[in-house]
């Protein structure tokens, strides 16, 4: 009688909970969980006359430390649909990548351009399935055959369909700008000006947002991704001379050099006798 053994099957995708028990045991013993990288963030979206304008700041934080001064928070979903992400960085990146792949497959299957509500439904069903543990708050915007659309998606899976939306820790600062200046049928320049002003309000007033302003303007003709559209926080503390360390300054215990390219040496010699 052979002892039944657990057969190791390769994972088919999705989350794996192998280490959950070990981690819970460590936490019970008093160890604190390390901080996930969050995107702090001010993200906004606005519907204007010809389409949708999305905006985001570019600071990523790990606890209280800024770990990335220029990260990208406006993610690609489809040629006509983009999504800004706030919350845990790994969650926003993976959710948007996953939905972007699913949308591409859907486009191949249906032979049509993606619609914003398709992306919306895919994202909200995924987030609701995980009951808010996948901590991604998104502003989804795009232009499809039915016109321009803008949605705000919350981590538990609820959505709002709005003419202007803000999410993230800087959302209140940005919303104050929108509430006072938004009107229907804005022109492109007015829309860009209001969105940058809203992001700048978040950058300067919210500690979790900072650095530069990214914009993405989507119309039915196409999209325009303006990375670092505004840089209101240039670095001001560079030392003009910098540090100069002489070669050999650092104390070294041992050195090993490994050649990567094979050096072929040609030696002069007599021709071999041929018989």
């Amino acid at each position, binding site marked *: 009688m052979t002892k039944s053994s657990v057969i190791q099957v390769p*994972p088919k995708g*999705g*989350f*794996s*909970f*192998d*280490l*959950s*028990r*070990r*981690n819970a045991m*460590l936490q019970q013993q*008093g*160890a*604190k*969980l*390390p901080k*996930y*990288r969050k995107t702090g963030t001010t993200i906004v979206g606005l519907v204007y006359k010809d389409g949708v304008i999305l905006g985001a700041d570019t600071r*990523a934080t*790990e606890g209280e*430390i800024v*770990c*990335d001064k220029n*990260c990208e928070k406006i993610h690609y979903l489809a040629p006509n649909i983009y999504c800004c992400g706030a919350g*845990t*960085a*790994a*969650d926003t*990146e*993976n959710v948007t990548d996953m939905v972007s792949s699913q949308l591409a497959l859907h486009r191949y299957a249906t032979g049509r351009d993606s619609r914003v509500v398709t992306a919306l439904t895919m994202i909200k069903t995924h987030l609701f399935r995980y009951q808010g*543990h*996948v901590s991604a708050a998104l502003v989804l915007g795009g232009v499809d055959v039915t016109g321009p659309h803008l949605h705000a998606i919350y981590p538990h899976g609820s959505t709002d369909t709005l003419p202007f939306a803000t999410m993230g820790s800087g959302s209140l600062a940005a919303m104050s700008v929108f509430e006072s200046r938004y009107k229907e049928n804005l022109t492109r320049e007015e829309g860009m000006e209001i969105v940058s002003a809203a992001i700048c309000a978040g950058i300067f007033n919210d500690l979790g947002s900072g650095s530069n302003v990214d914009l993405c303007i989507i119309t039915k003709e196409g999209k325009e991704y303006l990375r670092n559209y505004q840089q209101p926080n240039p670095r001001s503390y560079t*030392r003009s001379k*910098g*540090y100069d*360390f*002489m*070669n050999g*300054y*650092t*104390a*070294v*215990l*041992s*050195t*090993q*050099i*490994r*050649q*990567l*390219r094979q050096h072929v040496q040609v030696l002069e010699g007599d021709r071999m006798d041929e018989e």
Partner: protein
Amino acid sequence: MSITSYNGSALIAMVGKNCFAIASDRRLGVNFQTIACDFQRIFKIHDKLYIGLSGLATDVQTMHQRLQFRHKLYQLREERNMRPETFASLVSAILYEKRFGPYFCEPIIAGLNDDGTPFICTTDLIGAKQLAKDFVVSGTASESLYGACESMYKPDLGPDELFEVISQALLASVDRDCISGWGGIVHVVTPDQVITKTLKGRMD
């Protein structure tokens, strides 16, 4: 006590002119007791791709074994080495798979593309990738490391100067952290050669 400060670690990777350098400290401890001064945190995936792993030592070793396995499988199937960007995406996917029960390690990936341009990237413990053009840091001394690298880093350094800058940044930072240090090891990788040097640092 935090899980990542159980063993202690410090890692930096920096970009130079057609080269990169990756450095780590060498201490392995259990809370405040030092167990080893020659712990390996930087692993070679192939000649032009290195990964440094900080955090809980057991997860460092497990991640290294899993990644080495995946890369060897890739080499057998594709008959070539993985490009650095691809490898970074692989690391990110493996970490995100364990989103709700993660490995307690924060990797730094450093590699040279085929055309000689350097690539560095770090991820947090659940796989959020962060690309950088200048330097990336990881470990318990990360706050000091950020400060030291911000002030000492200069773009377009050659291999020798890059070695000096990264070593000084590492040594300065681990001196301000009790649980990392006890020496250092630096690998400087150019398209032609890999120079590995062990550093003399404070052993306290």
